[in-house]
C-alpha cells in the first residue's frame, strides 16, 4: 500500500469527473474508469462525506446512483446545503488520501474527530 500512496490522488482525479449545477443544486460524480460491481450504495456516499470530508451535520439530499453510466447524482434542497457539499468535494480526494497516509504513518489525530459512523 505504501508504494502506491504517492499516486493515489492522481488516480482518483483521473478516475472521476465531478460536475455541479448551482441553479439546480446538483452535484454529479461520474466514475470514468470501468469498474466491476455497483458504483456505490447510497449510505456509502454519506459515510464518504463524513469520514473524509469532515461533514458533521445531517444534510438532506437525494442520492441517485446509475450503475450503467457509473454516475452518482446528489440533489440538495437549498443553495446553502449545495455549497457546503460542493466545498467538501473540492478537496475530498486529497483529504481522503492524506488521512490514509497519516494513519499508515501512525498519526491518527485526524481520525479522532470522525463521529461514530453507522457502517
Amino acid at each position: 500500500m505504501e508504494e502506491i500512496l504517492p499516486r493515489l490522488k492522481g488516480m482518483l482525479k483521473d478516475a472521476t469527473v465531478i460536475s455541479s449545477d448551482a441553479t439546480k443544486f446538483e452535484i454529479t460524480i461520474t466514475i470514468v474508469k470501468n469498474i466491476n460491481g455497483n458504483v456505490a450504495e447510497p449510505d456509502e456516499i454519506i459515510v464518504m462525506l463524513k469520514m473524509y470530508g469532515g461533514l458533521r451535520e445531517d444534510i438532506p439530499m437525494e442520492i441517485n446512483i446509475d450503475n450503467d453510466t457509473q454516475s452518482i447524482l446528489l440533489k440538495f434542497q437549498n443553495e446553502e446545503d449545495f455549497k457546503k457539499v460542493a466545498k467538501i468535494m473540492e478537496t475530498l480526494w486529497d483529504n481522503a488520501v492524506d488521512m490514509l497516509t497519516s494513519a499508515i504513518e501512525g498519526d491518527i489525530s485526524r481520525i479522532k474527530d470522525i463521529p461514530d459512523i453507522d457502517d
Partner: protein
Amino acid sequence: MTDPKAIENNPFKELGEIPEKKYPNGYTVDSTYITIRDGVKIAITLCFPKGLASDTKIPTVLTQTRYWRAMELRIPFRWILDSMVPNAPNPEVVTSRGYALIYTDVRGTGASDGTRIVPFSEEEIKDGSDVVDWIISQPWSDGNVVSKGISYTGITAQLFPKNNHHAIKAVIPGHACWDPYTEIAFPGGCFEYAFMQLWSFLGKNLDLNNPKVFRQIRPEAWLLVKGVERVSSDKDLKLLQIAINQHKSNQYVYDHTLSRDFRDDNLPDGTIFDDISIFARKEKIEKSNVPILAWCSWLDSGFGDAIIKRFMNLSNPQIAILGDWSHGAGYPANQFFPERTFVTPTPKDKVNAWINFFDKCVYGDGIQGKIIYYYTLAEEKWKKSEVWPPKGHSYQKWYFSENYSIIREEPKENIGSDDYKVNFRATTGRNNRWWALLGLPITYYNRNKIDEKLLCYTSQPFESDTEITGQIIACLYISSTHEDGTIFAYFEDVDENGKVTYITDGEFRPLHRKILTDEPPYKILIPYHSYKKDDSAPIIPGEIMEVKFGLHATSVLIKKGHRIKIAIAGADKDTFIRYPNEGRPTITISRNKEFPSYIELPIIKKE
C-alpha cells in the same frame, strides 16, 4: 532485520533464486461459493494468471482464513484499487509463477455460511478437503493443491494434510502453533487474557461484518475497508446477509477460557484444548507424509517453541526456519538492534522461496529428511541442523547466589534466600511477544528501568563468546505467603556499559508444579507438566516447593565481556491475568545448599 550480510546458511538463499516469471501479465480475479458436504456455502476468491491457455492445467495454492479472505474497500478507494487480500499470499507473485491462488473464508466467517464454536475444529479441517475436491474437478486444475498461510491461515495449512487427500502435495505453516494451550492461551498455565480478549473481540466483529473493530487496532484499515468482500454474484448482498445472520450463533475463545484454568477443562462443545491442537492430529498428519516448510520467529508468542516441537515430533519431510522478526515478519524484532527498520528477506523474496518449495514438491522430487535453520541473535548468523537440539549441545547450571548474583558454583552455605514482594504494576507493556500476535511490533525496551521492579540476579562477565540455543530451564525453590501466584523469569544480556537487552522469558503458575514421569503427549526437552486439574495443587503458604519450568526457546550469543541476568517477577499486568486475584504475595527464593535455585542454559559448543 536479519543482517543481510549473514548469507551463509541463509534459508532464503538456499531455497533458491528468483526464477523468471511464467505469466508476467497480471492476473484475473473472481469469486464464487462452493457448496460443501453439509450444504454450507464456502466463499472463495480465485486468481488466475492472465494469458493462461484454455488447455493448460496448473496447480493451486490454497489459503483458508477466518479473517476475511478479501476486503471490500470503501468508496472512493474501491473505484481505483483492487480489493485487499491481507491474509493471502501476494496474488501477483503466485500467479506469475504459474499457480492458481484460491483463498477461502472458513465456515462461520467472512462471507461463508455456517457457525463456529471453536477454532481449528474437525469440521473446519474437513471443509478443506471438500474445497480440494472442488478444485481438482475444475478444468484448469492439474490435480495438485498446496497450502500456505501465516498465523490462523498457517494453522489451517498445518492441519490441511490431516485430510490425507491425494491432491495435497505440500504445506507452509507460517507462525503457527502446535499446542494452543501452552503457546497462546495459557503459557505456563497462566491465562493470557489480553490477546484472548482482543482476538475474540476482533473475531466477533469480523464475523458480524463490522469494520469498526479496526478503528482502534488498525486505523488505516478502518479508513480503507468497508467489510468482507461479497462473492461477485451476490449483487444485492442477500447471501452475505444470510451468512452474517448465521454467524450470530458463533462462540468465542475468550468466553470459553476466562473461567477456566486447566488443559482438560471442557469447552462448550464438549471438546478440550487438546482436541483442537495440532499435536492431537499428529498421527494423521504424519500418515499423509506431506512435506512441510514451517517458519517463525524466536520472539513470537509461544510459536517459536512450536517450530521446534513440530520438528521433533513430526516425521514428515520438513524444513523449519526460526528468524528474528515479529509475528508474520511485518517488523524486525531483534532486541539487540532496535534501530533496524525493515525485515530481511522482503515479502517478495519470501514468497518466491515458498513457491520454489512448492515447485519442488509439485513438479520435482520434493524434499527429503528434516532440516532446521535458526538465527542466532547478537551473533547475527544463520545456522542449520538436521537434529534438535543441535550437535554440541549440553546443559550448564548457573546457581542463584548472594548479592543478587548468579554463578557456576553450587551454594555451600546452609542459609541463603531473597524475598520479593510481588509488584502487580510490573509489565512488559503492549508490544511484547504476546501482543505481537495481533500483528504489532515487538519492543522490550528500557529493561534497565523495568528490572528495578523485579528481583534480579546477574553474572560476572563471560570469559568467552557463548552460544545459548534451545530452552533455558529455571529450577526455583520458592515459598509464598499466598496459595496462588505466577513466576515470570526474564533472561537478559547485560553489555559492558550495563545496557540490558531482553532475550527471552518464561512464565509459570506454581499450581501446576508437579512434574510427571509419564510420557508427555509429544516430545519436549523441558519438565513435563500436564496442566490438568488432577495434577494441580495450591501453594502451601510458607512451604518451600520446587518450581521447574522451561523458558521460551531462543538462540543467542553471549559475547565475551557480557553478563547474563535473570529477572524474576510475579505479574505482567498488561498481558496476563493476576494470580492471586487479591492480596500481594511475598515470594522467597531459596539459594542454599539444600534448596539451590538455578537455571540451566542449553550451551552449544562449537566443534
